[in-house]
Each structure stands twice: as C-alpha cells, then as structure tokens.
C-alpha cells in the first residue's frame, strides 16, 4: 500500500487547498495520471500519481487543506497478493472487510477537552496541523494555531508512537508558545468575541472562506497589523503622455504586439524612482533587524481574476522596454484570469502597483503587499481644470497614492519618490531620456 504524501511544492509553500479530484476511490491509475488539482499561493498545480495502482483512499475532500507531508492518497500498488507475511489477513469468520466503499467521514480525532478548547478559542479543528499520535489534535496544537503560530510550527509529520512513558512537552517550547499567546492577546481593546447569530434578524446565506479569498485575508491582516502604513498622495499630469500613447496605439493598430497601457509607462517611471530611492525596493527582516535592499526590479501588478486578487510579477523592468512591459502585462493578466499562471510568476516581486483606474475612483490607499515596503495605487485618469501659469486649463490628471512602510522610509522619501514620478510622467520625452 503506497501512501502518497504531498511533496514540497516550491519556495516556502507549506500547504495547498484541494480544488478538484481527478480520481475516485476504486479507480485504477497509471503512474503520471493526474490525481488532484491543488491550489497553492494563488496558482493551481496538477499533481500526478507517482505509481500505478488502485486508489484506496483520498486524502481529503474538495476545499480541504493538505499540508506538505500529509497524505494525498493511498494507492494499492501491489501487483500480486504476496506482499510480505506480516500483513496476512486474519481468519475469515472473525474478520470481515466490507465491499469497497467510501472512507468513513470521521470527525477530527480530538479528545473532548481539546474540542472544548477549540470552541473557546474559535478554532476550526479541521485546519489545525495535528502532532498527536495517530494524527490526533492536541490542546497544544489548538493553542498554537490560535496564536497564528503557523510561521513557527513547521508542518512536521506526526511522530511514530513509542512505548515510552508519557512525558510533558519540553519546557522551553511551552514557555515560548505561552509567551506568544500572551503577546498575541495583549493588544488593548482587541475584542475577539464570537459573532452574534445574524440569522436572528433576517435571512442570511453562508459561503465558506476558501482559496484566494482566504489567502488574501491572511495577507491583509498580516500586512495591516505588522506594517505602519503611511500614504502619500499626488496627481500626475499625464496629458502629454496620454496623447503620445493614443497616437502610438493608433499607429500600431493591427500590428503584432501589445496595445500600450498607461500602466506600462507608470511601471517604467516607478522603476526609475526605485533606482533613485532604494528604500522602496526593499524588505525589513524583523527577526534579524535588517533592511534587505534588492538590486533587481520586479514589479507586481494586482489583477482581479474574478476569483480574487492575484499579483503576477514582471521581472527586471529596468531591462525591459515599455513595449515589452506592456506585452508582459497583457500576457500575465490573461493567464492570471484563466488560472493558468505558474506559481513562480507570482513570486519574487519587489514592489507592487494596483490600478483601479479603469474601473473608477479618485484615489485609494492601498495595503502594502507584505513583505514589500511600498505599493503604488493608481486612480482614474480624469480631465480636470488645473491652474498653469495663472490660467485655468483642462488637463488629464492621474491620481497616485504611495502607501509605504514607515519603519523603513519617511514621508520626505515618499514625497521625493512620488514627485520624481510625477515629473517623469508629465512628459514622455523624460521617460525616454531618463529611464
């Protein structure tokens, strides 16, 4: 019997959510036949079967989370009966195996006291990585999960049961988790009281928090709690730039190559700005008390896929032309919406831009894509009356907001950064000369 465990899927990914099964219990598969689609960090991966055989058990249902090392499926890969004497089946009248059916849908193995603790802490037992014997969830597992200690506790497979007398867990570990528990809950006025029963006031509909939506929830809470956000807002006069862009798009109509988007020009301007102000192309490591300045420029663009927000990354924007960047935007956005984008294309970003302009809005204050230092939000280009040399003229204005991490940069840096961008966007010739 082969237990197929979820392999390491790539940098730092501990788990994936089951999106779709390609097999059922009882099916016979060949090696490399697709087994299951798993969504990890905003991209779906199809996992093939490593062996041929009959599917005996599936490791979870659609929507369940598989942790690296957890069982994806159990496959009976025995070609013949002889598999080793110790596994001989007991005598027929005393042991019966019923006809192949579905596995028992068991509740999560956990003692009553552990279940009560989970209820009190508002923890869903199905999401907790168990470390108890046989995959049982222990009270420590529940507490660790409640404190958000996922970053601390690696998804270790349960230890094999040993006939040793029960020992209390090592003291330092317990002290650490207890200390964290105090820290995590020592936020004044933080009220994690259970929600009221909304149904008492009228009809409600429920939907589980899954997939991209759930991942975004984690990212946003982390970003907003850890990073002191400050926003610097400005407007860029893109009248000349837009004239240029529209002319070029007219000229290039029908030709191969992408339609040029305003975003591509902004990316170029941002890249130039990042070179001048490296603080915004960095990450703060709070564990080592270090600022890591990145010497490469990978700009992430927020894409609304319809299933949620993903951020594909355009690499080395300092070495790409605006045309190439525009082409990359189109390609990545399309594949992000299709769900065919690779996980690697969502990684390695140093700075993020979110553009809600096409949809509308005068300004936004975006949330930083942790662990980056800053994010630029673009609003809608609007024709507005502005004052130039004492006269009121109509210009096309692009609202910009830079949200940045005040641990790493200050308001003056942000002002300088954004002012530079505004200057470069005000004349396409500057983009040609200076970027």
């Amino acid at each position: 019997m082969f237990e197929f465990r979820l392999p390491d899927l790539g940098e730092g990914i501990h788990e994936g959510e089951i999106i779709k099964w390609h097999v059922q219990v009882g099916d016979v598969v060949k090696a490399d036949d697709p087994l299951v689609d798993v969504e990890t960090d905003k991209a779906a991966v199809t996992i093939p079967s490593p062996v041929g055989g009959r599917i005996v058990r599936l490791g979870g249902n659609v929507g369940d989370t598989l942790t690296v090392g957890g069982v994806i499926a159990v496959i009976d890969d025995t070609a013949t009966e002889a598999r080793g004497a110790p596994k001989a089946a007991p005598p027929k009248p005393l042991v019966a195996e019923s006809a192949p059916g579905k596995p028992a849908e068991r509740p999560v193995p956990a003692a009553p006291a552990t279940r009560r603790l989970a209820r009190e802490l508002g923890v869903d037992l199905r999401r907790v990585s168990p470390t108890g014997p046989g995959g049982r969830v222990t009270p420590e597992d529940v507490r660790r999960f409640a404190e958000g200690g996922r970053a601390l506790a690696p998804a270790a497979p349960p230890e094999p049961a040993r006939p040793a007398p029960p020992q209390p867990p090592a003291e330092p570990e317990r002290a650490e988790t207890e200390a964290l528990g105090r820290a995590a809950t020592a936020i004044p006025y933080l009220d994690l009281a259970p929600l009221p029963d909304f149904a008492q006031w009228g009809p409600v509909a429920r939907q589980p928090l899954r997939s991209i939506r759930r991942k975004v929830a984690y990212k946003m809470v982390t970003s907003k709690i850890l990073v002191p956000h400050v926003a610097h807002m400005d407007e860029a006069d893109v009248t000349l730039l837009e004239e240029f862009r529209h002319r070029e798009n007219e000229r290039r109509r029908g030709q191969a190559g992408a339609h040029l988007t305003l975003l591509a020009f902004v990316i170029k301007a941002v890249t130039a700005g990042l070179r001048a102000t490296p603080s915004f192309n960095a990450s703060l490591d709070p564990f080592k008390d270090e600022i890591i300045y990145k010497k490469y420029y990978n700009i992430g663009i927020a894409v609304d896929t319809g299933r949620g927000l993903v951020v594909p990354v355009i690499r080395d924007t300092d070495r790409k032309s605006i045309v190439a960047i525009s082409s990359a935007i189109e390609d990545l956005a399309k594949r992000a919406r299709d769900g065919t984008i690779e996980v690697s294309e969502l990684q390695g970003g140093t700075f993020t831009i979110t553009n809600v302009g096409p949809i509308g809005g005068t300004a936004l204050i975006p949330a930083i894509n942790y662990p980056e230092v800053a994010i630029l939000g673009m609003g809608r280009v609007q024709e507005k009356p502005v004052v130039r040399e004492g006269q009121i003229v109509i210009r096309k204005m692009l609202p910009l907001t830079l949200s940045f991490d005040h641990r790493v940069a200050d308001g003056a840096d942000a002002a300088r950064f954004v002012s530079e961008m505004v200057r470069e966007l005000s004349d396409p010739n500057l983009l040609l000369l200076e970027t």
Partner: protein
Amino acid sequence: MVMGSLQEETEVAIIGGGPGGYVAALRAADLGKEVTLIEERDKLGGVCLLEGCIPSKALINAVEVIESARRARDFGVTFSGLNVDLAALRQWCRSVVEGLARGVAHLLQRRGVEVVRGRARFESANLLAIEGGEVGAVKFRHCIIATGSRVQPLPHASDLPLWSSTEALQLPEIPGRLLVVGGGYIGLEIGQVYAGLGSKVTVVEAYPQLLPGADYDLVEVVVNHCREHCFEALLLESRVLAVEKSAAGFTATIEYQGETRTGEYDQVLVAVGRRPNTDTIGLEHTKIVPDKRGFIAVSPEGRTVEPHIYAIGDVTPGPMLAHKASREGKVVAEVIAEHRSAFDNRAIPAVVYTDPEIAWAGLTEREAKAEGIRVKVGKFPLRALGRARTLGRTEGFAKVISDPVSGFVLGVAMVAPHASELIAEATLALELGASLEDLLVTIHPHPTLSEAILEAAEVAAGTPVHVPAKGET
C-alpha cells in the same frame, strides 16, 4: 384544574424533573443561575427513575439471581425450593425507586433549586402557566423543555386495560400467559423478567428481527438464548391486528407471516414505542414547531428556534436515552451560563439489559453498510475467553469496527454478561478518537470480560492471539 394565583419570575425555568431536567437544574445552579424546576408528578426523577430504567433494572437484578441459581447446578451448587415472594420483591423495588427520588429532591433543595409542583404550559415565549399547584405562572429569561416522552398505545385497543411498561414494572401479578407487543428493548427486557418469574411469554414484532436497530449478529445470540430458556414463542414479521377482552383475560388476533391466528392471554404488554411530550405544553404560543413525530429540532447548543428556549432529552431527535438527556442537560446549563459548550459527543452508547446483555457505541455494521462506508470488523467469541469460562457463560462475543486504512476505531459492540458496564471503555475510546493500537496496547486486567474488547481489536488489527490466525486451523 385549579390555577394558583402566585406568579413568579426566574432566570432559568426547567419543565420536567427527569434525568435531563434535574441534571440541567443542578448544573445551572452550580454555575450561579437562579433555577426553577417544574414537575407535574409528586416525585422527581421522571420516567427513568419512577417507571423506567430504575424499576426495570431492579426487577432484572432479581430475575438474574433466579437465573444464576438455576445455572449454578452446572457447578455443583443446588437449591431446593426457590421461592419468589412477589410482595417483598415489589416492596424492595419501590423502596429503591423512592430512595432515589428522595435523593434527587434532596440534591435540588441543597443546591437552591426551587421545585414547583404542577403542569406547565407556555402562555407566551416568556411565560409559563402552571396548573394544579400553588404557583400560577412562571416568567423566565431562559427555559429548558425537558418534558420527556410517553408510551404509545395500541391504536385499536387504547381503551382496554392493557399493560404498558409503567404497569408491568409495578409487578401487579405474574400472568400465566403474557403477550408482549413489540420486540424492542422494552418489550424484550420486561418479557424476560416475566419469563424468569414464571410467565409463558410470546413476543410479537413487526420487523424481521428483534431489536430492529441493532446488528443482527448481536441479536442472534440473545434470540437463541430466549428460544431455549425463556420465551414460549417469538413471532417476527407479525402484527397484532386486534385485542378483545375475554373471560380469562384477552384474545389477540395476530397476523403471523401472512397467516392469521388468535391466542388467549392473561395479560398484554404494549411496547410499540414512545412519543415525545410536546403536544400539550402550549408550544403554539411560541415559534417552536415540533416535527410530525413530535420532536423539537435543536442546535448543537440545545437551542430551539427561540434563542432563549432550549430542549433536551426525549423531546429532541436521537435515541431516547436517559444518559443522552443528562449530557444535553449539562450542555444547555453551560450554554445558558455563557460557556462555549456544545453537544459534540462522538458516541452515545446503547444498552439492552437482556440476558445476555447487548451494548454498542459508535458505528454499527448495519449503518456502515447502509452508508457505503468501508470498515474492517474484528470479532472475538466469548468461548475463547478465560473469564467467560469461569462464569459458565460462553455465548456471546465482542466486535470492534475500524477504518481499514487508518486503523481508527469507528464502533464497538458486545453481547455478553455485563456488556452494559463494559461499553463505557468503548465510548471513551470513540470520544478520544482512539485507534485499534490504542485499544490493544492498553493493558486490560486478566481475567475479565473486558479483555474481549482488546482481543477483538487484535483481530481487527490482524494480530489475533487467542483465536487462530490465517492459515492455521
């Protein structure tokens, strides 16, 4: 009905003083709540204590002694002239019941629970009208409905003086011929009592099997014992079409596997089921609507659709068992005290006090089959167990039902003497999410009947010790 004029206000009103109601009252009082318990009978304890669990087990104990005495012949112990003094037995059962009822009253009084005598009905979602007592009405912030269940009569003979379990357990007489209508646990237990006391007992059951909810292999052991030792006739797939009064007692028309026959009986025990007491408590003045069988739907916290009114015990869906009611009572008391409690028990054990006893907890083979769940079952026969031999009781077995891949225990069942006592280990195992390994690693004392569970787990795990392994004869 006289209604008192006194209106009271309380924090928690509990309707019913049975194993659900009084346990909830004690827990709520311990958690600092002001509790008023309303009971219509003149003694506390509910059906369980007064006319169910307790008197039946007291009588079964007496009959067991008689049976043991008869069996003792096998080990060289004989009696001459075994007598049963019915009046003394009756009196003893009554004293057991009364002692316990006084005990419950005492507990409630010492915990500061106010007990109001009378029949409660909802006037609104916040007010109970009480009939037949000194208190006229009770206004409450929270209410727990624990009104229990009652016997369902035979529809076509409801005006005849037939026995229900209530009358039978008072031991009015030993009928020469007793007809038991209904082969569930009540009919079987009481039938065996009267058979042990000398009646000729016939059992009629509509299903093809006695104890319709239990796995057949467990029932088979009891049926074989009953056929040999106690019942005159066991009529399966049969129904009682009519009962009439006759000179000697009653004439019953029975349809037995397609044929109709009549029989003469001195008494008829009706044990065809129980229904929840939810039809006369004024629920129409609340938003609570029982289902068509009379049950009230509740959330895991025991709440009805009225968030401040709870229901526990036989009025809620699920097995009508006193221990379920008690657990629910504790949960609801904790919920009212704003603890994050819920009824999330993984197993409710079921026990049948026949001879031999049957007990099970968790998944049955029948359920596994019906739901298409793949299981591995390990069985261990008592004839291979040392303790069973020393008792001279080798009919029966234990079985452990497990998940074939993970080894987790899904269910345990036994038919054996004292199965009722032994099943608690299994219930604990199920609550803890135990695997076969947990069961078979645990040292069970020797020689005991509890070893049968360990051995059954070994069989399921493929490492049997006291029965042959594959390949051996």
